[in-house]
């Protein structure tokens, strides 16, 4: 049947594409269904300098190469689709996309993650008008201005340092009294004269007219809220798992991340997981690729047995 596959992969980021390469190369009939553009969060990375074997590339180029590789082995890829229903309860796994239903023996969930928003007043209104999620894209709009970076992880501190190339000053606003970033990243940020810190605080709202004019900063220890005039805020507060459509059917942790064993097998027979949607500590392209390969090999074994 046309819509019947051995394995369907949900998600076409680094993990999903790697699984697609391994499965198709093993002559396993494979379909990748991706709700956005193939590449996932990889596409959102300007420069990749730590992917082994490739000295320097962009996330877009690496994604396109992986896609081409998967397709060259016969993997079918449908991107920008809207998945309307997922049923993994039976022996036959059924994925509905609009009027079409795709059936497979095994599923690999590789739906990835997405940037976390603050979800406070004005955030949507001032996106691109004072609020940014990409320092390399929008940093130069803030040349000579005072800006805020929200977050305390590696991304936040590394981007804060990179933004000092443009901004007069960078204020890092972080909710805890310590950083989650690696010690080296903290040291580099703390030793930069243009960077100062507001700890145990968060942004409570964004306000302005055509552009962002000021934010309200809330001290999480005292509850005090005060106004700070600012034209630019960059938000880097981590990622969340894209598991909303499937988390009722598979075991997840308190953050909605899908739990798996060392073979990337979930608690549902024939259902595997790979990449950032999985419960794990280190989220890198390299770790997603590793997950994708392991999930694929175990899915092959499942299908053939």
């Amino acid at each position, binding site marked *: 049947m046309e819509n019947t596959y051995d394995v369907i992969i949900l998600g076409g980021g680094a993990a999903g594409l790697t699984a697609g390469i391994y499965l198709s190369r093993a002559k396993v009939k494979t379909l990748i269904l991706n709700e*956005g*553009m193939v590449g996932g969060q990889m*596409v*959102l*990375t*300007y420069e990749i300098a730590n992917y082994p074997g490739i000295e320097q590339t*962009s*996330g*877009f180029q690496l994604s396109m190469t992986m896609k081409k590789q998967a397709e060259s082995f016969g993997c079918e890829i449908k*991107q*920008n689709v809207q998945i309307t229903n997922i049923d993994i309860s039976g022996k036959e796994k059924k994925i509905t996309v609009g009027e079409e239903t795709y059936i497979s023996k095994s599923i690999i969930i590789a739906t990835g993650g997405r940037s976390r928003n603050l979800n406070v007043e004005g955030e949507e209104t001032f*996106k*691109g*008008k*004072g*609020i*940014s*999620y*990409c320092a*390399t*894209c*929008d940093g130069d*709009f*803030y040349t000579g201005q005072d800006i805020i970076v929200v977050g305390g992880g590696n991304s936040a501190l590394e981007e804060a340092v990179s933004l000092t190339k443009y901004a007069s000053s960078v204020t890092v606003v972080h909710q805890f009294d310590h950083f989650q970033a690696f010690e080296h990243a903290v040291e580099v940020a703390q030793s930069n004269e243009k960077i100062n810190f507001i700890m145990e605080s968060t942004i409570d709202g964004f306000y302005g007219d*055509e*552009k962002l004019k000021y934010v309200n900063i809330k001290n999480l220890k005292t509850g005090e809220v005060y106004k700070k005039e600012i*034209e*630019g805020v960059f938000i880097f507060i981590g990622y969340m798992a894209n598991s909303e459509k499937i988390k009722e059917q598979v075991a997840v942790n308190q953050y909605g991340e899908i739990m798996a064993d060392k073979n990337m097998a979930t608690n549902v027979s024939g259902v595997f997981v790979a990449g950032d949607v999985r419960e794990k500590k280190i989220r890198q392209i390299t770790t997603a690729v590793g997950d994708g390969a392991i999930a694929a090999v175990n899915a092959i074994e499942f299908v053939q047995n």
Partner: protein
Amino acid sequence: MLMTNLEHVETAAQHQEVIENNENVMICAGRMGPMCIPVYAAMEELREEYPNVKFMDMDFDSPEAHVIRNAPECAGFMGLPFTMYYKNGKVVKATTSIQMKEQVKAILDEFFA
């Protein structure tokens, strides 16, 4: 030069000609960056679905892109890409920063249906 499969607007004069000679035009001015690439990809995919719309891009850093960078509709824009929607030569909508395919479709349906 933008590495997309879209037609490129390269000069201000060409920009004027395109919006004057086509009823519905969408032009995305950006770089090959993470916030811009998904918009180009959405446009490439929507071409078939909206044959009544001319989809083009423009290099944001080209001096000629002042026609978009300095457009009054883009005042206050601080995020790439700047995306313009023209009907009969007039701007009907402008957006800043990344837009998902569904957001682009909603605008096309509202103004170019």
